[in-house]
């Protein structure tokens, strides 16, 4: 916690939160665009309901406002690490399925993957500022993807993207919450910023 008390650490934290919020916002925007593209290119129904994807943490949570900053960061980090793996799988599947024919979808997926990765880096940095070493990725990732059929893989991808969009919203709110100057919180005073 000592590190968090220094002015530079506070500035760094505020900067990370600020940019994390904006990154979450852009990520959500891009994921929404990607969802449209994905549904179209995969031949899916945009209104199709997808059951919860295994290994994807749910964005919805009870007593969200009671969570501590560290708890929020850890849940976000776990979720985005999982998304990074899932999106990497999707990108590989998409390349296997469509090859280089649909480069736009591949670039969009790669872009979202990069953003997920960048957001995970933000979370790790914030955890370091909280004097918490980020947990090891080993064993925390999603289970190995079961052998699914093509359609199931498409639906799974749809579910991943939808859940990512949800998480983007939640992450922005989490970071905004972290940026708030709260005496109960261990975080330094921050400036609220709306996406």
């Amino acid at each position, binding site marked *: 916690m000592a590190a968090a008390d220094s002015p530079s650490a506070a500035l760094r934290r505020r900067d990370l939160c600020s*940019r*994390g919020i*904006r*990154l979450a*916002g*852009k990520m*959500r*925007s*891009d994921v929404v*665009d990607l969802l449209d593209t994905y549904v179209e290119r995969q031949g899916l129904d945009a209104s199709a309901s997808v059951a919860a994807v295994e290994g994807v943490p749910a964005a919805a949570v009870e007593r969200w406002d009671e969570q501590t900053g560290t708890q929020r960061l850890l849940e976000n980090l776990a979720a985005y690490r999982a998304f990074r793996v899932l999106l990497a799988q999707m990108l590989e599947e998409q390349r296997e399925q469509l090859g280089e024919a649909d480069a736009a979808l591949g*670039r*969009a997926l790669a*872009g979202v993957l*990069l*953003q997920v*990765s*960048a957001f995970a*880096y*933000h979370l*790790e*940095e914030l955890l370091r500022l909280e004097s918490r070493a980020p947990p090891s990725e080993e064993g925390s990732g999603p289970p190995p993807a079961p052998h699914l059929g093509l359609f199931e893989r498409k639906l799974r991808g749809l579910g991943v993207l939808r859940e990512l969009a949800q998480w983007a919203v939640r992450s922005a709110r989490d970071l905004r919450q972290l940026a708030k100057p709260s005496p109960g919180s261990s975080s330094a005073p921050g400036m609220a910023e709306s*996406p």
Partner: protein
Amino acid sequence: MFSGWNWVAHGFYLLLNICTFEVSGGLVQSCGHIIPESPVLALGSNFTALCILNESCLDFGNIYANQIIWKIKNKVVPKEQYREINRTVSSVTFNDTSSLATPLTCNILADGQIEQNIYGIAVTIGLPPEKPKNLSCIVHQVSKLTYPMTCTWNPGRHTFLDTHFRLKYRWPQENFPDCIPKDVNNSCTIADVQFFVNLEVWVEAANALGKAESDPLVLDPIEIVKPLPPHNLSVNSGILPTVLKLSWENRISGAVMKLKFNIRYRTIGDTNWMQVPPEDTASPRTSFSVQGLRPYTEYVFSIRCMKEDGVGYWSDWSEEKTGITTEDKPSKGPPIWRIVDASRSPASWTLHLMWKALEPFEANGVILQYEVTVRAKSSLSSPPEKYNVNTTNLTLKLPNGTYEVTVIARNRVGASPPSVLLIPASNSKAPVKNVRTLPKDGKLWVGWTAPSSYVLKYVIEWCLVSNSSDCIIEWQNEPGNVQGTYLKGDIKPFKCYLITVYPLYADGQGSGQSVKAYLQQDRPSKGPTVQTKKVGKAEAVLTWNHLTVDEQNGFIRSYTIFYKTVDGNETAVTVDPSKTEYTLSSLTSDTLYTVRMMAYTDEGGRSGPDFTFTTQKFGKGEIEAIVVPVCLAFLLIVLLGVLFCFNKRDLIKKHIWPIVPDPSKSNIAQWSPQVPAKHNFSSKDQMYPEGSFTDVSVVEIEADDKKSFSEQDLKPFDLLKKEKSTSEGHSSGIGGSSCMSSPRQSVSDSDEGETTQNTSSTVQYSTVVLNGYRDQTPVQVFSRSESTQPLLDSEERSEDHAGGGDSTTQRQQYFKQNGGQDETNTDRPCFERTKQIISANEGDLVGFAQLQISSQSSQPLGLGLEKNTQEAALPDGVQTNTEGQTMRPETVEGNPPSADEMPKSYLPQTVRQGGYMPQ
């Protein structure tokens, strides 16, 4: 000789050995090699190469390291740089690689004679890469989701080597593949970057001599974005005529970047942009209402954007869109002025009203019509007259008086405020003073001194003064608080403008004050044509016409007259520009002068054509001063001469026109009884009445000689007559012929007409009387009157009539003169022929000579002489003469006077022989 063949054989053997060795070994192998092989060297560094000989070659060819020669290209490296390391190795060292070149060869001198190449290497010289500097990056948005980042840097000096640059970038937790430039070495573009994460960027340069990295650049790509400009810009007019609403679409997501904007606009035709205050558009938006615009005006709009916090780059300006504000009613009335033409009728005016079309920013729309109201101030009872016109002028015929004219402009929205012009009956108010002009900034400024009383406004009239066109009046209004303005119009340089300033008061108007002005002056386009009006001996009056206003190009400040003689210096005289005449003085007489004239404006002068004139030889009055005295003197001399002649007229007459006695009046003629009387003698008698016949010549001839003279001596005369007749009566210069010629006759011969006249006027003036000597009574008389001495009848008559006491003297002189003539003019033959007469009577010589002259002087006389003896008729030539003249010979010869008259005239003349005695 032997040693030479030995060398050749040895060399051939060595070459054969080498080839044999290579072939037998199965490989192409040389006798040595160089270390290092194809080195890449830094420019300026030192370098050492080793040439290592193969042991096998030593055995076959006796080749050793001390025989090695190093060469760069074909140039031998100095031996000081060699070092023999051992029997088979030689090194060469270069302190500066800049002296190196490719190839570097190792050669051997076999037996010290034949140089053989052993090995060669290529040397590459260059520089290690410098650290790339000035790395900078920018993210260009190319689509809504694509943000390539382009980084540029300074690659540093040229390395002369193949140098590779790589743009490296990474996130703290993740590396990305390098960006490798294509075709360039100073920039590279990363296809897509992610925002909100710091990116570390640096450049790595590497070649064979080393590697260098730039300083890393850590940045969030969102901070270096140059977004695409907003698009789909639209402009819509609002309810207000001064507002236009802009709408657009942003091409960057709000989630990525919040934007601020710049909006610029201008009117159509204007090149200068105006800008909406940036603080009004510093927040994200997609529309904006631009206010404060002019009604009914077309505007052009453009917009750009950048990150809201100002970090990054402005986008390019968007495409331009136009929009027109709605109309509004005219903001002011049109400026109005008038021209009053009172020349046609003293009691009424022709009033030309004119007003200017409103400027677009004043009209605020399309002016549909003008409403003109004319109200006579003098008769308040009469209603104002209204006119609706579409043009900007109106001509009215009105009686003299004071009027108030109002003009209103009207468009679709409404009417303008009225413009009022008071037209007084006379411009009786105070005028402005000191109207002056000044060209300034390519425009013409007019200034004036305001009158003391309050002026509502001023009207400045001006027109271009030209010979080729009328003065078309232009005008402008100026507020009453100014005392100077620029003329608003197309004022041309080198043209004369007449500018008039009128002050307008609330209750009248002042008279106009005018000034002429030029925006810019130039030299005159031509010079004056000078010519002389009058040229004297030492002066010349020059005259010229003023240049026309179109030729002046400025104010003529002066004229200069240059004049010179053909070989003299030119003299210049400056003349006031108002003059059109000048007198050159102190000129040289009778000299050709060339004169020309220059007209000067402030900008210079131009010369007119040359004109030449010659001064006169004599001055005015000089000729008169000479001629008049000469004439007067001549007249005086003539007068004196006349007076003298008058006084001496008798003397002159005696010398020049001696009075020749008329034989017909002689007494002897009257007396002679043998002269037959003619039937018409009485008429002659009437012409010479008795008593008046006073002047006669008398030749006395001895009576003894009468017969011989009359018969013998007259024969030669007849012969002479015949000769003369055959020679047509002209003096031939032969003997008697010339002797017979009298001076007068000679003159007469030269003029036929005069001869005829003389002949016709011939008067037989002589009477020869043969009488006794002295007091003796004459026994026999031979009388003749055939003298042809020319006589002026009138004079003769007048003399005859006036015959006074001097007649005796005159007669004596006459005879003397005749005698003189005989002596001087008579030729010798003539003299010889007359000897007979001399012998007869010397005293008769004179009379005979006179007779000769008389007979020779006229042919008719000779004929008459013959006819006298034959009693023939008068010659034809005499018949044509006047009656009085023709009668004379007959009077003498054929018509004896009557018995009553004869004694009266005869007596006085018979006094003595050979002379004449006064009666």
